[in-house]
């Protein structure tokens, strides 16, 4: 009981208004370095991703870019063990969260996913639930019990952090599915934040959204960085340049498994790429 209480207290301590947090981001920095070591992936025996190693530093935004079908999304789904829920999917290598392999025998998949949240390409709020219920749905799924007041606080905090609070605070009881696409996506971000993940994976979170909603979500990502580690898959190179500190470029040659061509600081990847293929891609010559 005390453990559960403390979870929600942490969260509340984390709130105290957006402004206070912005001035003092360092105190709320969460642990959460993710490191992939020689990760490979197969679908029904076909190798689709080969020997990917990448460090995703804590409290930073890492962007994964590359053309379609190069394994970015597969790689992302390996990072929170969603890959294994696909029939016929296999993987090799290790993924370390703060030095511990998330695929180790003693690791429980539910616990891993609680620490590593995910936002999908297509907004997927639970349509049968209200906006408020959607935000705290993860707590029920993770069997975290909270009092009614705490629930209200969590809803406000998370919606504030995802930049949706002012738009929906007067209609928390209305269905989450009635929101616009961009609002739904921010609701999904709020929902992912409610379980206090150390890492947030985003799989092309803006590809189904209009430019205005994309802008708001990018703002949200920037405000979240410094608090949680973010790994974002994107097709949009400008977006990667705008929001990320680190970038990894994925590429798959025809009929070959995908892999990382080059990774490093975003500035370096975009301004001074070492590999000619990276240069071609970031300058829009293919893909």
């Amino acid at each position: 009981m005390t453990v559960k209480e403390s979870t929600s207290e942490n969260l509340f301590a984390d709130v105290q208004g957006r402004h206070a947090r912005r001035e003092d981001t360092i105190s709320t920095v969460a642990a959460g370095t993710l490191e992939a070591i020689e990760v490979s992936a197969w679908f029904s025996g076909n190798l689709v991703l080969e020997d990917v190693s990448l460090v995703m530093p804590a409290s930073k935004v890492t962007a994964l870019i590359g053309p379609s079908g190069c394994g970015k999304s597969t790689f992302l789904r390996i990072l929170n063990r969603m890959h294994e829920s696909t029939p016929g999917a296999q993987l090799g290598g290790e993924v370390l969260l703060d030095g511990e392999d998330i695929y180790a025998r003693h690791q429980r998949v539910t616990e891993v996913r609680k620490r590593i949240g995910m936002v999908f390409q297509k907004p997927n709020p639970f349509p049968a639930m209200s906006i408020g219920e959607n935000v705290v749905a993860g707590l029920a799924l993770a069997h975290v019990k909270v009092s009614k007041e705490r629930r209200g606080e969590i809803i406000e905090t998370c919606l504030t952090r995802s930049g949706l609070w002012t738009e929906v605070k007067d209609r928390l009881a209305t269905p989450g599915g009635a929101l616009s696409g961009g609002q739904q996506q921010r609701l999904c971000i709020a929902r992912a934040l409610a379980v206090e993940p150390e890492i947030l994976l985003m799989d092309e979170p803006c590809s189904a959204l209009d430019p205005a909603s994309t802008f708001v979500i990018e703002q949200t990502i920037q405000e979240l960085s410094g608090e949680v580690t973010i790994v974002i898959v994107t097709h949009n190179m400008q977006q990667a340049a705008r929001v990320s500190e680190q970038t990894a470029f994925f590429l798959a040659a025809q009929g070959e498994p995908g892999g990382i061509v080059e990774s490093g600081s975003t500035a370096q990847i975009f301004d001074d790429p070492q590999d000619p293929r990276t240069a071609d891609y970031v300058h829009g010559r293919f893909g």
Partner: protein
Amino acid sequence: MSGAGAPQLLEEDRPTRGKPRTIERGLSRSDRVFRGSSTGVGIFVLVVTGSIGLFLGLQSIPTFRHYGFSFFTQTNWQPERDQIGIAAVLVGTVEVALVAICVGIPLAMSLALFITEYAPRKLKSWMVSAVDLMAAVPSILYGLWGFFLLQPHAKYLARWLSQYLGWIPIFKVSTDPNAAVWQQSAYTSSVFITGIAVSMMVIPLACAVMRGVFDETPMGEREAALALSGTRFGVIRTVVLPFGRGGIIGGSMLALGRALGETIVVLMIISPAYDIKIRILEAGGQTISALIAGNFGNATSAQLSALLTAGFVLFVITLGVNFFAATVIRKSRSGALTEI
């Protein structure tokens, strides 16, 4: 006159602003033939169903004239004493169907959830065919199963229920369940045992409807629940059941419609008794369909009319239940809200 008419027609044909245009659909010949024949078949099916209802309705007019409203209040079915009514059999019909639903629906739902959520892919297809096969077993075999295999065991369950839950009126039996030599025949041929046997026949139907709806649960919502550290059961609770609610209700109602009309199993197991009884564990009872099947062979024309009237009542009830079920299933394609 005709010369002035032709250009005027063309004038009307020309699209004008703010007025809807008539558009030629231009169906091809094969489309028109197919549309015509499928419309014809559809109408034919409706006409057949409608004529069944009409026939039964017309046949029941003499009975309603003769007995009036007492047809619904009289419990006895004794044509020789001019006492005919469906009060008892109507109650019996509903009771058997409700027992079948109470036993069958939880089983069908667990089965559907196991098949869609837990079963490995190979087992899944195997189980789907097995359940479909359950629907293909002739009802007479379920009757034999119920009489020779189920009943000898179910009477112990019936006695146990009356021992511990006998204070609830429906589980009461007129004999002493705790007697050293308990009266076994009091617990056989009951609504309860008949209902269990009928439940086996409604499981495949209910399971198929529920499975269909559960399978349609959007992948995005499932993954959302999984990514929020949900267990498989968490996914079922948060996503699958809310999405499939219409299918659960609709499947149950379709099963209810099926159970209301089940005949041969009832005829084989239940011992006919024409009094309104709520004690489902006790021997004796009757349903409309078993009444008709049992008395059809040696009925006089007046008795036949009475049986057809009972059939008409059953027809109206099952039609209503099925119509309601179909409406619920049709309206339940939830999850549409998640589309953007």
